[in-house]
């Protein structure tokens, strides 16, 4: 059965504002449905990661402007859903309903820790320079490991995000472009 273009309008799971980013996301979904493709970039294989952030708007701006994410849903002060290729990144505010709520013992989720998403870039030095110029903080310097060079970036809430560049012998499938990539 052909995809129903109106599926694109059945999207918001939470109240959203009429913002340009949302309109853009909606248009992408409509365009994908018209072209007979599954709505991009979500798919049955998409991977979902949840990060906790102190300030939602600051975090959305960081991930979209510095790291190439696209905003799809925003529930002000509580929750956002971003995409980058097959990665669906959920941003939750501690204390907000749903994932942000306290555990039965009263413990409240918080940003931080060491577990992280790792984003591949073609030119790590250039990517680091670009996000550093934009004021981003790093937890360490570029480290050379086995098959990759990498660095740990901190988002505005102090969550780690790893950037890595493959070195000799590393093989990877295609990925979205991001700032600092070579043309």
């Amino acid at each position, binding site marked *: 059965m052909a995809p129903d273009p109106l599926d694109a309008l*059945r*999207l*918001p*799971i*939470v109240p959203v504002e009429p913002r340009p980013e949302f309109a853009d996301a909606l248009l992408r979904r409509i365009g994908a449905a018209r072209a007979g493709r*599954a*709505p991009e970039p*979500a*798919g*049955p*294989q*998409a*991977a*979902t*990661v*949840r*990060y*906790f952030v102190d300030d939602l708007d600051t975090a959305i701006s960081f991930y979209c402007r510095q790291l190439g994410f696209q905003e799809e849903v925003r529930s002000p002060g509580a929750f956002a859903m971003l995409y980058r*290729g*097959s*990665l*669906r990144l*959920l941003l939750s505010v501690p204390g907000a*309903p*749903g*994932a942000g*709520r306290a*555990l*039965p013992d009263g413990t409240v*989720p*918080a*940003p*931080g*820790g*060491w*577990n*992280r*998403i*790792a*984003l*591949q870039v073609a030119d790590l030095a250039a990517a680091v320079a670009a996000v550093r110029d934009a004021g981003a903080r790093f*937890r*360490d*310097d570029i*480290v*050379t*490991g*086995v098959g*990759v*060079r*990498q660095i*740990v970036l901190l988002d505005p809430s102090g*969550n780690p995000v*790893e950037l*890595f560049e493959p070195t000799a012998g590393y093989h*990877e*499938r*295609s*990925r*979205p472009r991001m700032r600092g990539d070579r043309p």
Partner: protein
Amino acid sequence: MSTVSVRYIVSDVDEAIAFYCGHLGFAEQMHPDPAFAMLTRGDLRLVLVSPVPPGHPGGGSRPMPDGTKQRPEGWNRFMLEVSDLAGTVDALRRDGVRFRNDIVTGVGVKQILVDDPSGNPVELFEPIRQEARLADR
């Protein structure tokens, strides 16, 4: 379609491989070093590393320049969609898997937090609204 990479710091890589492959449907891709393994599940590539000393060849789990050691902790996590959360939770509990909370009903999903053997969270969720579902989009 592209692979999504997530790195988890674990206290014991072998124990973590057994957990993620045995209970959560991951497949081992490589385990070339006691402190490193790469698993996959769909488009998710899970890199498991245990903390290593500064001179170790593996670059992903060395201490920071200020000496701070990486360790398992925190609330950030990857999420796995299941079709029957209650059934999945029952099965995992019978297997001895630990949970950090009970099933919580949110806006678009029901969810729960599994603790891996190192205490890292993994969120299992069951969509209760179509928009939250990945599989049928």
